[in-house]
């Protein structure tokens, strides 16, 4: 039990619980299945991307380009699909494949030229997004195919709320759940997962232990790209149009959610559990502010405060601990 207080995840979970209680007291509509289902659907995009970012952060790198990767992947996919037709499987596969390919390019540059990942991916963000702007001319794609629209509207569980309005669990969060499951298996049950932690913890040690650094780099960044491609499709499912500029600019929101969930920007540290909590906190704040009927003018202030509280407490505890350790050494 005492060990739990060492993790930032614990504090984030605590903040979520407190916040949920407060919101529910003010508006019981918060703690309903309907709200949960709506939130899951709305935050699938952020949730999928956050898992990719988690992998990259654990490996000791960072990726800024994933929003551009997502945009390029889904734009190309839908452009082709609108002309030649397809189905939901081809759309997801194609977008994921393009995303993985672009991620692979990131990995190759980072590994072989040994350029810091932040610089590489800032550069590739501009290249990918720039090329898309050139070729698309900023034109948006409307009129998504009928089958695409229908898939996005599919519910796997259908219920009716007390007011007689039907609601349900959309098929969209299932994509997120599948990604979570895959990530969990990779991180906890494969040598690959161990390798990613090792790489982020200490590159030299990982190398000497016998991990294939190139393979790890290739996997981490193309996995990020693959998830970006899928997340791009999810965004289009929700908005029913392909916009060139709707995703680029959200990089730091995603990275912030992952860091909020306890992953370290210096690598080697981070859990799937924490990342889910980070995304949940971001989602609950946004949702809760409206449900508590707080004036929109106060939103930003509130969000900032919640972040400071949830990150601040654990950071302060770590600082105290370090001080305590130091004093031991002096004696």
């Amino acid at each position, binding site marked *: 039990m005492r060990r739990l207080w060492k993790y930032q995840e614990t504090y984030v979970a605590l903040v979520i619980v407190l916040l949920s209680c407060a919101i529910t007291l003010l508006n019981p509509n918060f703690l309903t299945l309907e709200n949960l289902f709506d939130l899951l659907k709305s935050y699938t995009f952020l949730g999928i991307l956050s898992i990719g970012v988690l992998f990259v952060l654990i490996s000791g790198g960072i990726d800024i380009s994933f929003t551009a990767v997502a945009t390029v992947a889904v734009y190309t996919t839908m452009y082709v699909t609108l002309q030649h037709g397809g189905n939901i499987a081809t759309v997801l596969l194609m977008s994921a494949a393009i995303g993985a390919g672009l991620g692979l390019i990131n990995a190759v540059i980072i590994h072989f030229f040994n350029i810091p990942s932040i610089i590489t991916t800032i550069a590739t963000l501009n290249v990918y997004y720039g090329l898309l702007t050139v070729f698309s001319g900023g034109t948006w794609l409307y009129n998504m195919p009928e089958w695409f629209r229908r898939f996005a509207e599919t519910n796997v569980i259908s219920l009716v709320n007390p007011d007689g309005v039907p609601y349900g669990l959309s098929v969209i969060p299932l994509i997120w759940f599948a990604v979570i499951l895959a990530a969990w298996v990779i991180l906890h049950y494969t040598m690959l997962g161990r390798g990613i932690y090792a790489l982020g913890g200490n590159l030299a040690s990982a190398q000497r232990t016998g991990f294939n650094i190139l393979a790890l780099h290739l996997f981490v960044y193309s996995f990020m790209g693959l998830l970006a491609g899928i997340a791009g499709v999810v965004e289009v499912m929700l*908005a029913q149009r392909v916009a060139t500029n709707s995703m680029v600019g959200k990089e730091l929101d995603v990275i912030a959610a992952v860091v909020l969930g306890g992953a370290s920007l210096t690598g080697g540290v981070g859990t799937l559990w924490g990342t889910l909590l980070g995304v949940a906190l971001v989602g609950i704040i946004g949702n809760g502010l409206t449900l508590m009927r707080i004036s929109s003018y106060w939103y930003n202030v509130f969000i900032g405060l919640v972040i400071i509280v949830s990150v601040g407490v654990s950071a302060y505890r770590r600082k105290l601990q370090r001080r305590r350790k130091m004093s031991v050494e002096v004696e």
Partner: protein
Amino acid sequence: MRARTLFGLSLSLALIFSMLLSACATPTAPPATEAPKTEAPATEAPATEPAKTEAPATEPAKTEAAQPEAKKYEIAVVVKLTGIPWFNTMEKGVKRAAEELGVNAYQTGHTTDDPAQQAKVIEDLIAKGVDALCVVPNDAKSLEPVFKKAKDKGIIIITHESPDQVGNDYDLELIDNKKFGEHNLDMLVKFMGDSGEFAVYVGSLTVPAHNMWADAALAYAKEKYPNLKQVGDRYPVSEKVDDARKQTLDLIKAYPDLKGILAFGSQGPIGAAQALQEKGLADKIAVVGTVLPSQALPYLKDGSLKHGTLWNPADAGYGMVWLAKYLLDGNKVTDGMDVAGLGKATLKDRVLVIDAALDITKENAESLGF
């Protein structure tokens, strides 16, 4: 919007990122909108003649040929953000003006709707030495210092959607903002009835036009429809479909009796309609607001969006460039003058207003062509 504060977490990251991004995104002098179209100076000859006085009349044959190249005014149109349909359509008008008026007019801007980035783009254009700037401001206040800089250099400044702008020469409006706000509210009342709760969306709390319409609509509602009740404050979600969608889903739960949504900003009504469609609430909540006809069509058809309003952004682009050239030629702006063939304009405190508002319904959305 709301999550933007999350950036604080990775502040250093954000700094490096934005610096690099803005460095890459500075307007790389758009390719001088297609070399001098020969027919343009020919058709325009009578109108532009007075401005070309310095050309020595002694050797007409030679100068005639060289003139269009040398004398072309450089007019830069800076929009809120590039790469969205609204401003893509505006660009069409700018290009048409460049061709028809024989000026070097082009459209540019930053990829985000960040006021600071917009100011930077304008500063670069000032340094480059343009003759006139046509600006659609993200934030009226934050552009005042750069406008002053431009004025000191003798650059003509035209704004659009910013009637209270300080530091510009003229502001061109294609709608009467007050009437437009009131008309939108009337349309909302038409579909939700004259009593009940409604919410107001804007692009952001600093976009001048959206907030002016909201001000006008709300003042009008207070006076004419006392039984209407606005919930919360205005929500800054109208620039992105998914923000407006999420906000609508949240509002439905926060205010179960909500009957209407008035959304200013082209993506707001779409996001709201999308949410209602998903929830099957299109019959219970009426959405009215500014939309692009082509994007709104499916929502108008299925009834999740009741009524759209707007003006043609291409006309705005054309009008701004026309007005800039008109001023560069040394002409005076007067009340009742015809602007760019768009109609008669009323002049009040440096604001030129032409009433060219459009109503967008499922019947005409397809034929409007943008």
